[in-house]
């Protein structure tokens, strides 16, 4: 059942954002053109939720901001990002309580457990030569989200996969139905393995029992993009009876669709439903109509109280008791969609009504607007041609 607690974040006058009032659902999706503040909003959400853990990680790796907010923003969001914060204008409000960011970065924080697992858009950078880079391998001005994600993958592979072994498919990880769909979408001819090259372990693709390995750089773009995401899913779905990892409550995934074919996006969205079933709350940013197609379909199935099996039909997934449970759980979740416009305002377009007279909503924040315009132009061409 959906947790009814509302989580509200309000950002004002921060970088491109003039005002973004976000009420997070079980699944929250942010859409909008490039550089409208979606990623900033999500990274600030992570900072507010995990302040103690972020500070402790940064200090562990020797990063010091001298209790100075601009210095901190350059470390946390990345070099040059200090300019986002405008003194006496920028505000962050979390759960109706104003956060004093200047004071926040100037104080010692009690270390708390991490609650937000952040998968950044630049995730492909986390694998170099087929192995995750450690936190310290990055430049001090690289965003924290990228460095932290990379380090998490490194720990996963070094602590939970200690041998040279098959990484995907693997029986202990993920439901069989999901493994089959992922294999079709991403690894139709190869399995993902950990192999040893001279003294270095690395991820490779391998066909059956063949000794021939395909190293990271010759993988398809989609495979290179997906493998860090897959490892992120492995981290979030431990091979134990516990459905979630440690104290993680939230999962943020930026641009889930990056480099993926629509069929692969579809399977990845099914993985999101698996995360929801496990009890995580998920926040996505996306430019993909397929992601919103899924949200829209889930809402329609829910409103019309249709059979949960229809959810599985969307993905071409097998109807099994465990997948039925995933589908039923998805229909109980609250979903929010926000559009970040060029003027800096975030609009709630959660209804995703294609018949809406509000073009922001019917065009899904510009994501399907172009297709709509194309259809209008073609209909004009056909109608005119016929009349002539």
């Amino acid at each position, binding site marked *: 059942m959906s947790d009814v607690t509302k989580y509200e974040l309000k950002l004002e006058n921060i970088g491109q954002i003039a005002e973004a009032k976000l009420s997070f659902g079980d699944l929250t999706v942010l859409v909008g053109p490039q550089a409208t503040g979606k990623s900033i909003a999500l990274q600030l959400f992570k900072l507010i939720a995990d302040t103690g853990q972020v500070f402790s990680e940064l200090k562990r790796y020797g990063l010091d901001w001298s209790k100075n907010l601009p210095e901190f923003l350059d470390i946390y969001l990345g070099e040059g990002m200090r300019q986002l914060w405008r003194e006496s204008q920028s505000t962050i409000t979390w759960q109706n309580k104003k956060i004093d960011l200047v004071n926040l970065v100037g104080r010692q924080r009690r270390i708390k457990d991490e609650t937000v697992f952040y998968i950044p858009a630049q995730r492909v950078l986390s694998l170099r030569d087929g192995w995750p880079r450690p936190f310290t391998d990055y430049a001090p001005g690289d965003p924290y989200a990228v460095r932290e994600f990379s380090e998490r993958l490194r720990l996963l592979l070094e602590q939970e996969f200690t041998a040279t072994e098959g990484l995907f498919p693997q029986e202990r990880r993920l439901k069989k139905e999901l493994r089959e769909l992922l294999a079709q979408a991403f690894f139709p001819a190869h399995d993902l393995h950990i192999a040893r090259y001279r003294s270095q372990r690395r991820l490779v693709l391998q066909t059956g029992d063949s000794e021939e390995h395909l190293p990271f750089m010759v993988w398809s773009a989609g495979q290179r993009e997906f493998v860090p995401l897959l490892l992120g899913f492995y981290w979030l779905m431990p091979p134990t009876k516990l459905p979630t990892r440690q104290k993680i409550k939230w999962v943020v995934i930026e641009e889930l669709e990056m480099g993926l074919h629509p069929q692969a996006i579809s399977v990845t969205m099914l993985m999101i439903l698996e995360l929801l079933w496990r009890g995580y709350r998920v926040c996505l940013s996306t430019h993909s109509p397929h992601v919103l*197609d899924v949200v829209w379909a889930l809402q329609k199935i829910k409103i019309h109280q249709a059979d949960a099996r229809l959810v599985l039909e969307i993905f071409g997934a097998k109807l099994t008791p465990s997948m039925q449970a995933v589908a039923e759980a998805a229909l109980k979740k609250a979903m929010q969609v926000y559009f970040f416009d060029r003027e800096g305002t975030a609009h709630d377009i959660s209804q995703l009504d294609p018949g809406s007279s509000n073009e922001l909503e019917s065009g899904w924040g510009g994501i399907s607007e172009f*297709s*709509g315009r194309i259809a209008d132009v073609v*209909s004009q061409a056909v109608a005119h041609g016929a009349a002539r």
Partner: protein
Amino acid sequence: MKFREAVLNTPALEDAYCAGLQAFKRADAEHITCTSPRDIAGSVDVDSVLCQAFPDKPRWDYAVGIKNDQTTDWTIWIEVHPASSTGDVNVVIAKLRWLKSWAADAAPDLLSLTREYVWVATGSVTFSQASPQRKKLASAGIKFVGNRYTIC
């Protein structure tokens, strides 16, 4: 040619010409917005006029005239119809086919003024702007506008 003249040249419709958007049934008119009433050259409730002669045919709803210049108007053909299932796409395409075949003989002047064929949806819409259904409509020459159409 002007819209009114084209209607009067159509024996089946000549008595059905209405000024402005008065041909629209009240429920259907709620889906139409007009910010410049002066540019409306009249309207015809095609469906009501033809229902006796063609009771079993998939009839189109309305023809609306829009002023173009001093001597010519446009015809916009408007269908107000649910979009509650993807099957409605086929229904509306069938309506357009029938309209064209009927008008080719019975209303060639109105047909020659055609600017666009518009489907205005009643109720909730079940296909998105990027959907194959939307493309199918476009290929048939139908502009799908959702629940509201701003005519001019």
